Each structure stands twice: as structure tokens, then as C-alpha cells.
């Protein structure tokens, strides 16, 4: 996209990651090079075992690469930081905290005083439409609501980059469609760099400016495809010919990767 004039936010070069498993060394990522541009929405698709979650964990600073480098704004990512928010597939809400307490936790860690952080957190609780549930505990919420809280929590600390690991993977189709639209709207308003992992090609094409296709064994990047479908997008975009063409193209490529794994 021309708007973000290719300013690099995250730069990955020669990244390798291997684990020592029971059956010897397992190569999760091999020679991964990737640039993620500022304010870009980028989706990663690929079969399970292609190392997409490992890549996200390295960008989050939760795991260290075996070799190679991952940088944000030119400096190496050495550990987790509030500049890179993460939304996990399993929601990862603190069950002993209410919705508002979950959302304000990151602000509390930043040392913001109680009143201000409550106000600030409330903005994001409202943003995800859960104002009436601010004092509810996670156990009282549906899966979709939990993930909204997790998204609000990630947004509240105002990170520069959002890393999302199949955030809608565990939700039913209708909730997922709703959250996709909400996410698109939010991204449109508060342009943040979004690094979004999914196994759902439809979702990737709907959300992303670029889709990265990964292959498995070892995990590596196969191809990066620009999605030239104009924004704003919504569920109706899925009826457009250009969307369908992209979806079919990417689906056929991803399908090839699935077959590789099945072999």
C-alpha cells in the first residue's frame, strides 16, 4: 500500500529457531526474512507446524531465536515489551480480575495512578462494546466477549505493534465475523502495525494488506502476496470478485503446503 511508504517497523533477517525434542533437533523456523511496515496489517497463513506461532513469540520477545535477528525500529528485540501487544488464542485473561481490572493491568504496570488508568481503561472497554460488563469476571463472559477484553487490554497500553496469534480461532463463525469487522474498524481508526496469524485464508484475505504464506518442515516463508482490495472492507467484501480471486489464489497455494505436510 502506498500510504505507508514502506517504512519498516519490524525487520527479520536470517532467523532460525530449533528446539531439542525427544526425536532430536526440530527446526521450527529456517532462514526467515521478513519486513513488516509501519501501520501495516499483515497476515501469516500456513499449515500447523510451520512455525508461525514461534515467529510471533520471537517478535513478542517471549522466545529467543537460535540464530538471526529480529528488530523493531532498528533495535534488536531482546525481551517482551509493552510496545508490542499480544493477543493470544486462549484469551489469557486473568480470571481473578474483572474486565476493567484486566484492561487496566498494563496501565497499572506503567505506574499510572488509579483514577486515570480506570478512565483510560474504560475507553477501551467501551471501544469493544463491553461497558455493561466492566465489573464482570471472565468466567461470566462468552468466548467472543473474552477475546474482546483481551483486545481491549492489548490496545489499552497503546502498543506500536499488535501481535495476534489466531485470536478468533476458537470462536464460532458469527462471532468471528463480527470481531473481524470490529478489528478492521479499530485498525482503520487507530492505525497500528498488526501482525496477525491465522489458519483461515478467508480471514487473512479479508483483513490483510499483505498475506505471508508459510510452509512447514522446516517452517519457512514461501511467498508474500499483496492484497489489492481497497479498504474499508467488511463481510460484504467477501462477495467482490477481486476478493474472491485473491482468496482462491492464496487458498490454492496454502493447500499445496497442507499437502506437503500430509505427505
Amino acid at each position, binding site marked *: 500500500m502506498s500510504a505507508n511508504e514502506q517504512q519498516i517497523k519490524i525487520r527479520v533477517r536470517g532467523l532460525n529457531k530449533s528446539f531439542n525434542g525427544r526425536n532430536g533437533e526440530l527446526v521450527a523456523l529456517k532462514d526467515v526474512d521478513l519486513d513488516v511496515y509501519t501501520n501495516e496489517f499483515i497476515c501469516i497463513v500456513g499449515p500447523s507446524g510451520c512455525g508461525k506461532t514461534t515467529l510471533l513469540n520471537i517478535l*513478542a*520477545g*517471549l522466545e529467543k531465536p537460535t540464530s538471526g535477528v529480529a528488530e523493531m525500529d532498528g533495535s534488536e528485540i531482546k*525481551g*517482551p*515489551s*509493552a510496545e*508490542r*501487544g*499480544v493477543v*493470544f488464542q*486462549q484469551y*489469557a*485473561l*486473568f*480470571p*481473578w*480480575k474483572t474486565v476493567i481490572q484486566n484492561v487496566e*493491568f*498494563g496501565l497499572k*504496570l*506503567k505506574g499510572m495512578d488509579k483514577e486515570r488508568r480506570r478512565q483510560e481503561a474504560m475507553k477501551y472497554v467501551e471501544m469493544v462494546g463491553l461497558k455493561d460488563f466492566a465489573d464482570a*469476571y*471472565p*468466567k461470566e463472559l462468552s468466548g467472543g466477549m473474552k477475546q474482546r477484553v483481551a483486545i481491549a*487490554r492489548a490496545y489499552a*497500553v497503546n502498543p506500536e505493534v499488535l501481535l495476534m496469534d489466531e485470536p478468533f480461532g476458537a470462536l464460532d463463525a458469527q462471532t468471528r465475523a463480527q470481531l473481524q469487522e470490529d478489528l478492521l474498524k479499530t485498525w482503520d481508526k487507530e492505525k497500528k502495525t498488526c501482525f496477525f496469524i491465522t489458519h483461515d485464508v478467508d480471514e487473512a484475505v479479508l483483513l490483510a494488506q499483505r498475506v505471508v504464506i508459510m510452509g512447514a518442515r522446516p517452517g519457512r516463508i514461501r511467498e508474500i502476496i499483496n492484497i489489492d482490495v481497497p479498504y474499508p472492507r467488511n463481510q460484504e467484501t467477501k462477495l467482490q470478485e477481486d476478493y474472491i480471486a485473491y482468496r482462491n489464489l492464496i487458498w490454492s497455494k496454502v493447500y499445496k503446503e497442507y499437502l506437503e505436510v500430509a505427505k
Partner: protein
Amino acid sequence: MEGKSKKISSSVILLASLAIGFVIWTIISLVPSIGSIIVGPAKVFEALISEYENGNLAKNISISLWRVFSGFSIGLITAIPVAFLMGWYTLVRQFVEPWIQFFRTIPPIALIPLVIVALGVGESAKTTVIFVASFLVMVVTIYQGVKGVDPVLINAARVLGASDRDIFFDVVVPASVPYILVGVRLGLGSALTTLVAAELTGASSGLGNMIMEASLYFRMDVVMLGIILIGVIGFILDKAVLYLEKRITSWQEMREQ
């Protein structure tokens, strides 16, 4: 509607169960050869009144409860930090765990003779044995909780900018609270068991001693009274902790019963 009718029927069943229990107890006590040992409810009730009136009952109950709470409290106060240190630092765990596992296999009652020789038959002996018994049970339970904290929650805190200190106090501690309460329940049960054993062997007061002394004079009504009181105390303590658990950890996901 359905929930309410269920509730009523469950309390009716409880009452029926109690009534039938009392009937069976009475019938057994009416069998001549058994009745002299298992005395009936009426006689136990008389014993309750007379023991209450001569003041022994209150003294014995309060001294027993004091022993349980002092031993148990010291046990809890030490078990919590030890369990957290074990869960947080691998070195501490490797160092301490074999000892805990070893002492856990020894019934605390087996320590009583040793403790009596070392500390005499005074209060400190009983407190020590109860402390050891409840500490071992609680430290293992709480440690399991600390160790079992969901790593995803720890990661979620880290990516929000939490330091190790923040993670400890804002994630590990609250996540372990349910296990602390389970530990408290198990620890209290173990403290009560050990208390009675300690009082049966070497004490001049307390419910265990009351049972022991009464059996020497073949006062089976007082023996039965003592046994029932210990059961009632254990039951009340357990319910009290369960109530606390409900209040403190209402955030927990529970399976519907």
C-alpha cells in the same frame, strides 16, 4: 422453579438421613451386649449436660482448639513462603523437595514419642507435632498451585510489561490462592487428626485426653461424647473454610454441581 424444588428435596433428604442415623444408633444401643459400649443418644446427651455443667467441656474444647490453631497457624505461616520459594526458584525446590517428600511418608504420630522426650508433655510438644503435620500437607498442596500457574497468563503479563516482581505478586500469588485454601482445608484436617493422637498419648487436658480418661473409668457416654464432638468440630472447620473459599475465589470457573 426446578432449582428451588431441588433445594428443598435435598434438605429433606439431609433431615431424613440424620433421623435414620439416630434411629439406627438408638436401636444398636438397645442391644444389651453392645449397649454398654455404644451408648444411646439420650445418655450421650446427659453426658454433654453434666460435662458442660462441671466446666470440663468448655475447658477441654478450648484447649484442644487452641492447640489445633497454634500448630496449624505456624504451619500455614511457614508453608506459604516455603511453597512459593520452591515454586519460584528451581534451586530451592531441588534442595528442599527430597526432605519434604521423605518426611511426608512418616505419619506425624510416629514423631510423638521423640517430641515428648525432647519437649516434655507440655503445650510446645503438641504444637510442634501439629505444626509438622499440617505444614507438610500444606506445603505440598500450595507448591503444586504455584508450579501449576498457567504459563500463558505469565506470558500475558510479560507482554504487558510486567517485571518478575509484578508477575510474582500480580499473577503467581492470586493464581495460587485457591490452592492455599485447599491446603488450609487439608492442613486443618491433618492438624485435628494429629491433635487427638497427641492428646491420647500424653496430655492432661483436651478432648483426646477426655476420651482417654473416660475410657479408663469405662464412662462410655463421655467417650462417645468426645468422639462426636471431635467430628462436629472437624465438620464445622471444614465448612468454614469452604465458605471462605466461596467468598475469596468466586472468580474461579466451577463445574456446575
